[in-house]
């Protein structure tokens, strides 16, 4: 059965005619061609498909679009603003926190939610916040360092609005 669904994705309102039983993950990737969001299990086990729904990290493989009409959905494609990458994105690139890059979108949105609620997370809070996102490449070390670096840059950026951007690693 198909239905007209209205979703707000990355700040844009999208209307689509789609099967009601498709998951948000499938609709994002297959109907909206937002393939930045990846899948690792499609069973809610690996964190790869994380997106933000009203700011909360959510596994898009366990959500039906019909449930989140009216919510703000943010995917990795929506993190950069006007072509300017988010400090998390820059830090991940510079520190080698994205090796194969497949788990990266899910980790970035989850880390973004963390930094929005806690601009000064300690290492344990970062580990807690990202414990549901599996990564097989990095051993998580560079990911933790990149979140710390981004947090630090965001704090100094907030103090000095034009001072961010940072040096290259």
């Amino acid at each position, binding site marked *: 059965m198909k239905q007209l669904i209205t979703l707000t994705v990355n700040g844009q309102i999208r209307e689509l005619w789609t099967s009601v039983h498709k998951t948000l993950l499938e609709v994002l*990737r*297959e109907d909206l*061609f*937002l*393939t*930045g*969001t*990846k*899948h*690792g*299990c*499609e*069973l809610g*086990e*690996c964190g*790869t498909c994380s997106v933000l729904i009203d700011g909360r990290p959510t596994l898009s493989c366990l959500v039906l679009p019909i449930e989140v009409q009216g919510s703000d959905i943010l*995917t*990795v*494609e929506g*993190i*950069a603003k006007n072509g300017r*990458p988010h400090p*998390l*994105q*820059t830090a*991940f*690139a*510079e*520190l*080698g926190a*994205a*090796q*194969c*890059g*497949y*788990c*990266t*979108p899910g980790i*970035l949105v989850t880390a973004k939610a963390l930094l929005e609620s806690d601009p000064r997370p300690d290492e344990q809070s*970062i*580990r*807690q916040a*990202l*414990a*549901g*996102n*599996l*990564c*097989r*490449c*990095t*051993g*998580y*070390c*560079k*990911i*933790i360092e990149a979140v710390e670096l981004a947090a630090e840059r965001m704090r100094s950026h907030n103090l000095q609005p034009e001072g961010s951007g940072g040096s*290259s*690693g």
Partner: protein
Amino acid sequence: MAETRELNLIGNSWTKVDAMGMVIGETRFADDLHLPHMLYCKILRSPHPHALIKRVDLGPALKRSGVVAAISGHDLPIKYGILPVSQDEEALCVDKVRMVGDPVAAIAALDEEIAEAALEDIVVEYEPLPAILSIEEAIAQEGIQIHEYAQQGNIHRLVSLEFGNIEDGFALADHIREDLFYYEGNTHLPMEQHAALARYGADGRLTLWSSTQTPHYVHRALAKVLELPQSRIQVIALPVGGGFGGKTDPFSHEMVVSKLAMLTGRPVKATLTREEVFYTHRGRHPVLMWIRTGMEADGAITAMHFRSFLDGGAYGSYGVASTYYTGALQTVTYPIPNYKFEGLRVFTNKPPCGPKRGHATPQPRFALEVQLDKFAQDLNLDPAKLRLKHLVPAHSKTVNHLTITTMGLGKCIQKVVEASGFDDRRGKMPPGKGLGLACSSYLTGAGLPIYWNKMPHSGVQIKVDRGGGVTVFCGSTDIGQGSDSVLAAIVAEELGLSLDRVIVVTADTDLTPVDLGSYSSRVTLMTGNAAIVAAEPLRNMILSAAAEQLDVSPARLIMRENRVFSADDPSKELLFEEAAQLAEATYGTLGSVGSYTPPRRGGRYKGAGVGPSPAYSYSACVAEVTCDLATGQYEVNKIWLAHDVGKAINPTLVIGQIEGSVYMGLGETTMEEQVYRRGLHKIPSMLDYKSPTMLDIPEIESFLVETHDSEGPYGAKEAGQGPLLPVAPAVANAIYHATGVRVDEVPITAEKVFKGLQQQVRGRRARIGPTQIPAVEWPEPERVDPPEELLVE
């Protein structure tokens, strides 16, 4: 080569060339591709571990609305396999299934749901056969054969080699130990599920986009199975979302989507489910090991006899090579003057094992390094000093004819011993806390290709644009290790360019010269050397044209920061593009090629092809653990790991490889198990197949040791696999030190430690591990004399 020049990029931690694409969500992996008119493929898989296929009826499925095509084994009957000696796989099984999950039929339909529903319509009649599910059963059961081509019964391969004379060696020993070890199988668990998309064009050419580490081998296998000339097939490896060896075989789904695209004239895509990925496997072999070693009182090894039993699963895969690898690299760390290796691999009705990070060397390394710890205990020697006193010398040959070039293990041991306080702290730790040390070594690329040929292992082609951009073409495949970036950086370094001037085009059999693929830690060394060779003539042409223009000697010109200038008078300078245009005017279109073939210097015996490498990396690891003596629960508190990488082309990327290797090693050591019940995978999900999360990984302190190996580009050796190897034995040795319990098998679970602690309470020897090996009639070994000269220059 470039050793004398000042290096701008090499040795610095620049950002990977593809990193920004990954973080903004632009990088396209195989399943991200979508073509107009595309069909979706689903594969029907066997529910039986071992059965004859009596009948397959696709008719009912074809009647379902939305189904466009259906195929079964008879549509793709030609066998293939990664090794020429094990051509035993069928894209869809024809007469027999050999494991649960074996592919039997496939559907192409308008969408995935229809395809999945149509699988239920396919009628398959099976006649179940007895299933063989363990090493012991495989050796005992001769009546039922999984593969008729097996060397004997269900023994896929049986090997026996003796280097020197172990009896003479054991006669010289002051102390002899015999120990048994077991290393459970585990799997790669890449975050990306395998996917492949095929298109058969109006021009009669097939294009396959796939998440593969080895597009060249897929190219060859597709040509064979589809009976198409290779010239009509293009294989493109997309960025791979985690490989670790799990995407190095040609796979059934790649053949199937190609065939369906040819039959329907429409693009066809297949993406495996996570459960299918667990069955596709090719991961770490479960290996049972017996090791007998003789030692002098000071720790010098006089002889070693090593036996390994590999549970291969249902197909050959890389298994013949894996078998030899369980016996090949024991000799490259500490001198073993007399060495005998007996190994066998059995077929069982389970998903096939193959190469996982370290390819069949972590298992024997675990056995060897834990046994050394036991020797140190027996002989009252310090485990670090024992190893330091008996290191294989640099520039030498081992008893099994492997050539060692640089050897930085001593420095690695010193680094981790010092940083961890191994000497001072070890004697003073409270019960339940312990430190353990282990070492290892790994190949920097296999010295021989997978199929016999004399051609290069890696080729690089470079084109210079008039605008100053340089495009580098190479068949190498980036699986996240950063091979595209290393390739770009080396060409940028050689031509004095900034990294953003270099465009890399990789892993496309139509566009790029052959590189054998991302396996055996070969890419940095082999493509790096090929890139340096390819850059040299371009560099010479550009320098020569610039020299004429600037009226200086080419030898006095420097290429740096996108400029060409005089070393004596920097005001005499040209932009790179100006110099390139002058060179093009003089020499014509600017392009060049370079290639690399490893030196041939292995021994001359059967199996001598496995083990030789241009150079070996070395690692030393100390693990610190805290164990609850009441429950056996333990925590790895910290890992120190020093790695001899020759030269770090990019230290951040090398440390990333070390950290990732340590993580993967810890996963294998503490929790990961690919285990089955009556042929069914017990835990084919990412929830139940436990792998470490961010909460499980301790602090990892890495140290880079640089030995500047003349075989590698700028002196580089591998980093992607070697650092995994010492982790399991270091943790096992630490647990012994903390508890007095020897867990001689991997994974080391709390339950096993607890059982050991219980044995201790009852006054028994606290040891968990295998207690026997199957009786096997080993063949008379091939006897190989040690090399005449042990030191080489």
